[in-house]
């Protein structure tokens, strides 16, 4: 009796140990930004562990190359980056120190989202007198939901290639993601339809893809050139342009100078909208879908109240 008990307990223990050893470890996914991380969570579900390097509230062009990121990247199976020089100021030294060939450029574990979408504002000519112009085009492309769809599809394919046992899950999750996105996009389109052609001002050139998708017109940016601090002369020009075109909305992200935007808004009779492009940038918008919901609802409400 006791013997049998011990024997069965031993068998159970061995089975547990073997099971633990064989149960597939989660795919370790690192995303440079929170938007890519959120989409990766939708696609990867329980089969992946996702970490974002940049905080949702910080400027993705200027992230500190902290040593803890080296450790995170060292252990990554997959690295999702925006590309198009967005992370040029901080990702290369991290990759160099992380010594992880799985996520090197061109490796199976590396997915650069900008390679998947049609880039806007690809300059035909550029130099640094034009400010921080990205030679590969404008890197703020995930606020076009159709771009998010392209990126999600590539993630599902890439996750499956690296982690074949979970490929069915990735496929199902992608289908769910696409269905959700299509349904939400229809709602967002309806919300924005009355505001076709509406005029907006942004701090940086970072809402170009949203304007393109939802037929808005970006009249001016508070920065005279990308990455260049607003000057008084330029702001005077912006205020004049806003008055002339009856532009009543200025969009700023959490890391941009809200006070400058407020000053301009006061003089131009406009409102400042705090709109983050990153899930987690607002407390109640933690996923990509919630972030887009918040963006569209806030924008539609602000444009609607001015009619």
């Amino acid at each position: 009796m006791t013997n049998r008990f011990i024997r069965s307990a031993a068998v159970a223990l061995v089975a547990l140990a073997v099971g633990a050893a064989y149960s597939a470890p989660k795919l370790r996914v690192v995303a440079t930004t929170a938007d890519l991380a959120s989409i990766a969570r939708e696609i990867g579900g329980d089969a992946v562990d996702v970490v974002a390097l940049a905080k949702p509230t910080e400027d993705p062009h200027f992230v500190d190359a902290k040593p803890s990121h080296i450790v995170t990247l060292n252990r990554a199976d997959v690295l999702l980056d925006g590309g198009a020089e967005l992370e040029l100021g901080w990702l290369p030294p991290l990759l160099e120190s992380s010594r992880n060939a799985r996520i090197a450029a061109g490796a199976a574990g590396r997915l650069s989202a900008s390679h998947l979408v049609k880039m806007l504002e690809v300059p035909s000519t550029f130099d640094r007198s034009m400010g921080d112009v990205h030679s590969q085009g404008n890197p703020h492309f995930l606020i076009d939901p159709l771009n998010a769809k392209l990126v999600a599809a590539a993630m599902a394919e890439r996750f499956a290639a690296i982690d074949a046992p979970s490929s069915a899950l990735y496929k199902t999750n992608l289908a769910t993601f696409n269905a959700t996105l299509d349904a939400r996009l229809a709602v967002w389109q309806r919300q924005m339809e009355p505001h076709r052609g509406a005029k907006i001002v942004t701090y940086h050139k970072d809402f170009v893809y949203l304007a393109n998708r939802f037929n808005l017109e970006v009249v001016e940016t508070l920065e005279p050139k990308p990455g260049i601090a607003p000057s008084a002369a330029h702001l005077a020009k912006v205020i004049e342009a806003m008055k002339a075109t009856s532009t009543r909305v200025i969009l700023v992200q959490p890391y941009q100078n809200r006070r400058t935007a407020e000053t301009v808004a006061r003089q131009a009779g406009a409102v400042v909208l705090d709109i983050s492009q990153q899930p987690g940038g607002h407390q109640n918008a933690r996923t990509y879908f919630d972030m887009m919901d918040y963006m569209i609802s806030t924008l539609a409400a602000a444009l609607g109240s001015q009619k």
Partner: protein
Amino acid sequence: MMKAFIAPATLVAALALPGIVLDAQESAPARPAGAYMNVGFVALTNAGWSTAPNLAAILQGDHDPKVRGFTIPNTELTLDGAVDPYFKGFGNIVFKLDENGETGVELEEAFVITTAMPANLQVKLGQFFTEFGRQNPLHPHSWAFVDQPVILSRLFGPEGLRSQGVRLSWLVPTPWYSEAMVTVANSTNGTTFSFRSEESSEIHGGVPVERAVLEAGDMLVVPRVATSFDLTSGQTLLLGASGAFGPNNSGPAARTMIYGIDGFWKWKSATAQQGFPFMSLQAEALLRRYEAAARTDVGDSTVTLPAGTFGDRGGYAQLLWGIRPRIVAGVRADVANGDVTAFASDFRGDRLRVSPNLTWYPTEFSKLRFQYNYDNRKTIRRDHSFWVQFEFLLGAHAAHKF
């Protein structure tokens, strides 16, 4: 056929979703990205004035502003890129003007690092700044002040500690960042100042002896460990300890031991705009034991200086405050002193220097810096210096390490 099939579907989608623009306007596929080699050029131009009669006595760094008036103590041509799937290569060629306006050229760094070694290992080989502490491996363009810390000038000389050799590094598999590394390099020439350097008379006052490399102990060995923690989501702490061990040429069997500890703390706002506001504190403390052998006085060949061990110690702490985008205020305090020995040297005397500065970065590619130095060489004199530095950068901008 395929095209004909897609077109009606597109039409249907467009009708179903009024307002949707399916073909993005003004769009273009991303042009091919990447390059076989990144090329950059960075120039430091300085202007200033000092009350010190002999500027070389207070500004010992080769890239410090050592001229009343104008000077260009450092321009660098920087080259880097992937060599092949296994190596990444770097080259750093310095063009500079000396105190007399003469142009100097030096191969500052030329090395490769491995990119695909197993077991978290990485090898660096060639000529490179030795990874001792935080400040020594930095190029002048990355310095937070116009000049190098006093204690580094004393222990590592005008050029910093760099040599030809190999460095093995291991990223330790701990949940937090920790790295252990060791460099083995040649212990000779002007860039190994405390070791077999032609300029070692400045330290010991004797005629340097010729020493051949006969055994492993004749090489320069530089171990280092570093570890880092994120204290909060906005605060990071990095701690390190380094050593440098090798022969010196005061005699045929004399040796030098240098020990250093370093710390770096940084806070950055969670809603930082272009990396601002931030606050950072960096500090290093170094200690050198220089075994001077009995040697012939460099000024009088009839005099033999007695053997003895020289102790030197010092450190610096620098606080930077990124007040708002592109404006940084800083202050640095330097202290250094050396044991009184048979060879009396102003160079190793008690010294305190305090340097407040203010830097404006119009963009990441240019900067304008103002710095005042209060310099108290306690047994000699007090001096005041004021420097203005302008820097510009062309081409590839090497990303800054933490």
